[in-house]
């Protein structure tokens, strides 16, 4: 089109374009019109702007403002139409069923074991403990000799051991084997926890398994006392069971410690009255603990005159089962446990 002609027909061209824009029904249509009239290389607006450049000074003065007006009018019509189309879409009257079922986006979940272990680790790492580990296949030395369970110790009969090559190579019967490994390897001061599986040759039933998870903790430092043990484990109980949990410490025998202590929490089912769940005790046993036996420290090469420490251990499976309402321990790792999101 002749440039002067364009400018001459400016009004009608612009109003025709604006009309077309205003009639657009979809955003796609509008985009095409936008390209055709406003933004494209060969768009009307571009043509007008180019046309203006070739004019003399006077005509520029005459048409300049008109081109600006045209630009404003076109852009405004685009914006207006866009708003109108959005509004139609937003206020669509067609009935929609918000109850239409939708599939949940699948999300992966960590096992109950990992969740509970992490909950415990969170407490202990906050208090400066490392999370440690050790081998499942163990030697008599680390599993028994160094844990203060020499060959003829009666407790060995209680811990029916699964052997790979008796009497020296076995599956660890407790995570205390990791305690003795670490105390034999690193120099104190030490603070660490060990979540881990242990094995005993026991008849299995809904509440007892030959393969079970333990959670063990150890502190060795200067001046460590029963007072420290009590405070740490009381705080831990609050972390796991809430601020209001009531704990008590009572004497309990474990070969690895002396003095030994069991920690109970008040039975929440009977509030201490004694019921079937707590076997009439009114309290539920949560963990075993005590001051690390000086024989154990010595066998691991630590001088008990300089260092003292406490250790504690608990079965994880019962805690996991309670938290996730699992009633049969065999379901925990037996291949049946399906996580449903």
């Amino acid at each position, binding site marked *: 089109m002749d440039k002067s002609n364009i400018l001459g027909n400016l009004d009608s061209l612009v109003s025709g374009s604006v009309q077309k824009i205003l009639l657009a029904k979809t955003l796609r249509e509008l985009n095409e019109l936008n390209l055709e009239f406003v933004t494209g290389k060969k768009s009307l607006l571009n043509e007008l702007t180019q046309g203006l450049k070739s004019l003399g000074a006077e005509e520029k003065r005459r048409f300049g403002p008109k081109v600006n007006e045209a630009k404003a009018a076109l852009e405004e019509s685009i914006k207006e139409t866009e708003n109108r189309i959005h509004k139609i879409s937003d206020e669509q009257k067609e009935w929609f069923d918000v109850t239409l079922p939708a599939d949940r986006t*699948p999300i*992966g979940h*960590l*096992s109950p074991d*990992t969740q509970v272990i992490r909950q415990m680790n969170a407490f202990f790492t906050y*208090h*400066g403990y*490392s999370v440690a*580990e050790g*081998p*499942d*296949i163990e030697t008599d030395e680390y599993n028994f000799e160094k844990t203060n369970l020499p060959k003829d110790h*009666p407790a060995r009969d209680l811990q029916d051991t*699964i052997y*790979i090559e*008796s009497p*020296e*190579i076995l599956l660890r019967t407790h995570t205390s084997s990791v305690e003795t490994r670490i105390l034999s390897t690193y120099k*104190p*001061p*030490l*603070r660490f926890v060990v979540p881990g*599986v242990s*094995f005993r*040759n026991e*008849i*299995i039933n809904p509440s007892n398994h*030959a*393969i079970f998870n333990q959670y063990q903790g150890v502190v060795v*430092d*200067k*001046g460590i*006392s*029963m*007072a*420290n043990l009590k405070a740490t484990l*009381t*705080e831990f109980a609050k972390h796991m069971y809430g601020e209001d949990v009531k704990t*008590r*410490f*009572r*004497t*309990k*025998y474990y*070969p690895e410690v*002396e*003095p030994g202590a069991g920690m109970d929490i008040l039975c929440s089912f009977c509030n201490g009255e*004694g019921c*079937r769940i707590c*076997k*009439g*005790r009114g309290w539920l046993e949560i963990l075993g603990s005590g*001051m690390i036996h*000086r024989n154990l420290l010595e066998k691991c090469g630590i001088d008990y005159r300089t260092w*003292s420490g406490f250790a504690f251990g608990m079965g994880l499976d019962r805690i996991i089962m309670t938290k996730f309402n699992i009633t049969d321990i065999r379901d*925990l*790792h037996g*291949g049946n*446990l*399906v996580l449903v999101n």
Partner: protein
Amino acid sequence: MRVPYNWLKDYINTDLTPKEIAQNLTMVGHALDKAIYEQEGDTVIDLEDRGNRGDVMGILGIARDLAAVTAQKVKYPKLGAIPTTNNDRFNPPINVESDRVIRWRAVSFKGVKISPSPAHVQKRLRSYGIEVINNIVDITNYIMIEAGMPIHAFDLDKLGSITLRTARSGESLVTFEGTKLQFDENDLIAADGNKPLTLTTAVGGRESGITNGTKNILIEAGLYDQPTARRSALRLNVRNETAGRLGKYLHPDYCELAISRAITLIKDLLGINPEPISFDYYPNKYPKVAVSMSQQRLNLIAGEEIGLEEAARILEGLEFNVSSPLKDGELVVGVPYFRTDVVMEDDVIEEVLRIRGYDKIPTYLPLLPAPKKLEFPEMELEEQAKDILARLGFNETISQQIVDKKEIEKAGFWDESRVVKLENSWNEELNAMRYDMASPQFNYLLSYQKHGFSEVKIFEIGKTYSKNSQKSGYESYTETRKIVFTATKDFRSFKSDVLSFLRELGIGEIAFEKFSFSLFKDQKSAQMKYNGTTIGKMGEVKSSILADFKVRGTVSHVVFYTLELLKFAKAQSPLELVTTITNFVIEDRTFTVPASFEIGKILGAIKNVVDISTRITFVSVFENENLKEKGKKSVTFNFKFDPARTEEETKKLNGLVFR
């Protein structure tokens, strides 16, 4: 240990209720084992057996601890004088031929009249829950429950002599209950010549036992090597009151106590005195034990100052002999014979703290700063892997480390020389250590499918175990850490998960190489390499294997070795942070290549020539009849060039030829 309330009150004055007694005893180390119950008109407090204390296997021992807690004195029962010891003149002749006999003390009585026990004795025994037999047997049981020391009565007229010796293989005994025990050289017996009379560590024989016609008796209290007692009981499956007690560490003085007590009770109940000579075999007398406890150590363990006077008072309440005066911040205590568990300073400290009450110990956290962190990088990587896999939609499974050999075989991994086998197990079928992590994944997959899930993504992080038959001993066993995941997906779709997983660990640029692996379909099996090191294997699981596990559909599986991943993890940042928008020049390009040419190789060649700023994305692979005839396919990639380099890059790509 079952403690009938009224029987307990024979030895201690107390107004405490059974519940309060149970509470007190629980706190000092004798936890209530089950709810308090009524039996034979008495209330029974059933306490957990405490592993290291033989003394509390008798009601008297329990009374002693209760007395210490409640500041009472124990009312000891009457003890009769034991006649003069003369082993040579004792009749019948007794020979001890085993060093496993620690002490053997005996007396005999003549002219006994066997009859039922008086009502009060029967009531006591029934309240404890032990069968009532006759006056003599009841007396032996009474003493065992009272003092914790088993004793045994023989019918003197049924034996000529007694020899204490280890059994000979082939010897056997019918017990008083009628069970036949088949002995071996590990069992300690009492025999009359070649005829076994008792398994002396656990149970008496029928033939030499007390019957209604018995007139003359021998009563003996013997202590033996405890491990021998425990092992015989375990192997011969004799788990009774006697075996339970003789397996614990009782002091030889208990023999003296039990015989003295028998003399009193037989006099009281039958009105007869022992014969004038007693027997006592006790070659190695146990020394008296004295332990010193320092103020400093007591304070350290308690975490507070506890006066030695208070400690002394507590220990005296437990019948420890405290030497006075206290000197130099140290307490020297004589340990009473019955407390065989107390041998060192910390044992004495426990006595002080437990009777004083653990609740009195203050409560404060360790005062020193936290020590240096111990590093376990494999575990940390695995924890990170768990989070990544959960984000990718995988559910974590945890399976047993001990498996059925058949499971390993099903997955095609059984290797007799490499699998770690167990010598003993609670279940005959579960007799091997996990050798692969694939079979448990398939079992879990099946569970998900049974629950109606069609799309399943699961992972497990754990160890497998293997044996190197070239080595021996502990060194020959290896625990291999693995990260495996499995999904009901085909190879390529699963590869997306694998790549995202690795990328999140900071491992990009993985080379996939076709690799034959028994678990995977021949063509859909690859090993992954990073910088030339194999980090894992992935593939589509063979249909035949899935069928053995009853798993349906297409399943892909990957196994990574934690140790290998650890070498390369965080080699690259998993996140590219971009703030400026680059205007790329975008172009699709198609390469025609031989049909079996690996796309990975094309990509490798492209990456070799183009600049690092050029982004390449695979678009599609195309084959039609025409191409097939020529044995070719065409592969299209999308390129995003830096505008300034477009020309140069295009030129390089034009130069690429694939044959």
